[in-house]
């Protein structure tokens, strides 16, 4: 089982490798990837450095080119693909059928992984991407339970990659238009969700208001910790009660599932967070490396060490973690 860690820049990439990542995933600094944030991601020369660094340490580099090409603008996605292939990256993470089609025709030997943005949750959809584009691996959306993942794993020859830790996206990725509904920009069209340029904080006597494009996402009293106004994690009113109507600000943490995931032969566990700091990447990678090694050593005796959970909870949204949809009761 591969430990796949995020990097938004070279310092994060080096930290990930130093702390035990088997592979690192990055994006280019344009809107061809779903973490298109200012100051984040890799230029041509940085990508070259990243490839060299990873390969010198016998680790792999994956590049996410996982937004959907706009009409008449495919050359931008094509250039990104050609660049990544040319630099010798180990895998491309792709969602758009236009990009997959191009890859299978122009770069048939390039290893391709299907991005979570393609929203594949079942064996027939896997058949489609496997047969049409020879996709080697799929990244599963965070909507399936462990039982559902197990059934899928038992019935497919494709490699499965799961989100193991980090921000919890509660919608089927690639099919969520909440962000464009509120701001005009979505993961599919602009590579962003709840973009920072639309965030406004208002301090009003004892209350801090967090707004996204003018919409009040949450209000925090002085004794509450204020979180980033991701639009699905706000407190809203439904039939007179105010609560986190969609989801609490919480992070996904699947350490406890590791023995089960090993048994299912999951190819890769993915840490979310290309937008996070090098220090974050270092700490999360370190914990997950130790945990995977322990589970591989003896799955039967595997226990989640309290210190691991403490470290991860400290790095999590709202200091809370959840098994998310992997655990049926969450649904």
């Amino acid at each position, binding site marked *: 089982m591969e430990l796949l860690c995020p990097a938004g820049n070279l310092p994060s990439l080096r930290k990930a490798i130093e702390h035990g990542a088997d592979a690192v995933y990055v994006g280019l600094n344009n809107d061809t990837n779903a973490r298109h944030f200012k100051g984040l991601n890799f230029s041509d020369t940085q990508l070259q450095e990243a490839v060299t660094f990873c390969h010198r340490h016998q680790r792999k580099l994956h590049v996410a080119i996982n937004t959907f*090409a706009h009409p008449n603008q495919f050359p931008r996605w094509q250039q990104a693909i050609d660049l990544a292939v040319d630099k010798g990256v180990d895998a491309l993470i792709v969602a758009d059928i236009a990009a997959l089609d191009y890859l299978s025709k122009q770069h048939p030997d390039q290893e391709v992984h299907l991005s979570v943005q393609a929203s594949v949750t079942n064996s027939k*959809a896997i058949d489609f991407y496997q047969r049409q584009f020879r996709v080697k691996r799929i990244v599963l959306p965070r909507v399936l339970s462990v039982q559902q993942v197990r059934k899928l794993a038992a019935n497919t020859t494709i490699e499965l990659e799961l989100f193991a830790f980090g921000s919890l996206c509660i919608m089927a990725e690639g099919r969520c238009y909440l962000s464009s509904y509120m701001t005009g920009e979505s993961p599919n069209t602009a590579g962003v969700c709840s973009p920072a340029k639309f965030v406004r904080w208002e301090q009003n006597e004892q209350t801090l208001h967090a707004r996204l494009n003018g919409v009040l996402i949450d209000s925090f009293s002085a004794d509450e910790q204020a979180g980033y106004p991701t639009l699905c994690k706000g407190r809203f009113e439904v039939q007179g009660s105010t609560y986190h109507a969609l989801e609490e600000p919480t992070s996904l943490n699947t350490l406890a599932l590791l023995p089960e995931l090993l048994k299912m032969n999951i190819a890769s566990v993915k840490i979310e967070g290309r937008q996070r700091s090098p220090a974050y990447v270092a700490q999360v990678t370190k914990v997950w490396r130790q945990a995977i090694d322990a589970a591989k050593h003896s799955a039967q005796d595997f226990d989640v060490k309290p210190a691991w959970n403490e470290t991860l909870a400290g790095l999590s949204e709202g200091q809370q973690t959840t098994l998310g949809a992997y655990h049926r009761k969450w649904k």
Partner: protein
Amino acid sequence: MSFLKTSVGPMLFLWEKPLMDAFYERVALSDADIVYLGENVCGKRRLSNHEDYLRWAQRLARCDKQVVLSTLALLESPQQIRELERMCNNDSMLFEANDVATIQVLSELHRPFIIGPAINVYNGYTLAKFAKLGAKRWVMPVELSKDWLFALKKEYDSLCDLPMEYEVFSYGYLPLAYSARCFTARHHNLAKDQCNLICQTHPQGLQVSSQDGKELFTLNGIQTMSGQVYNLCEEITELGKLADIARISVHQFEDLDWVDHFKGHHKTLRPTTHINGFWHRIAGMHVVD
């Protein structure tokens, strides 16, 4: 006079069978050209069964409606896939695919299909690929605009000469997201596995507002919808130039009155609360007057 055809989209809310019976009787007598039947949102909803849908399909076909069976957007279990295969194998009807799995099943059977709004088609290359696999009509994802549609059609025409029909979601609460979680059950403190189909008690969904009173979303089981009704009634001229079909997604019987509007029989002004942002390439919840 508009050249637009109108369709009545699949019922996205869970309505009890007698209400559905009455509803499709009204649809049969309406001027709609196309009717989409079937459950699109949640695999657990079974107040109407397959036989009911076939019965409505026959009734609607007798009134010269083109009937399309719409399918689930989120297919998660082997059982759902088996049911999908059985349905596609047994029925000679036209299907709307809302997951790539459905496209795979239908293309293996060499059957024509319609691409629903929950499939990620953002460019002409993707649409051309699906056209070669049997797609005859494309319902644009709700977040896309008239500019996007115009550019995409042009790109498609440069790549593929197979005919394609274009349908635009033009009226109704916008389906914006699908989750593993049932938000309606969550509101009632019920586990999804023991939901008792509680969503049937909210036949127009559950309104979600911000703490300062702005209507934001409508919860409909695992689906999150717009808080306001999307309405392109004042964009009908542009719509008629770019699209073949205007889809009307109903949450109450009276919404069928919009069929006449989109057919160009009479003009109605957009109610002040209705939104149209996506069509104008701005935030979906906003309005361009």
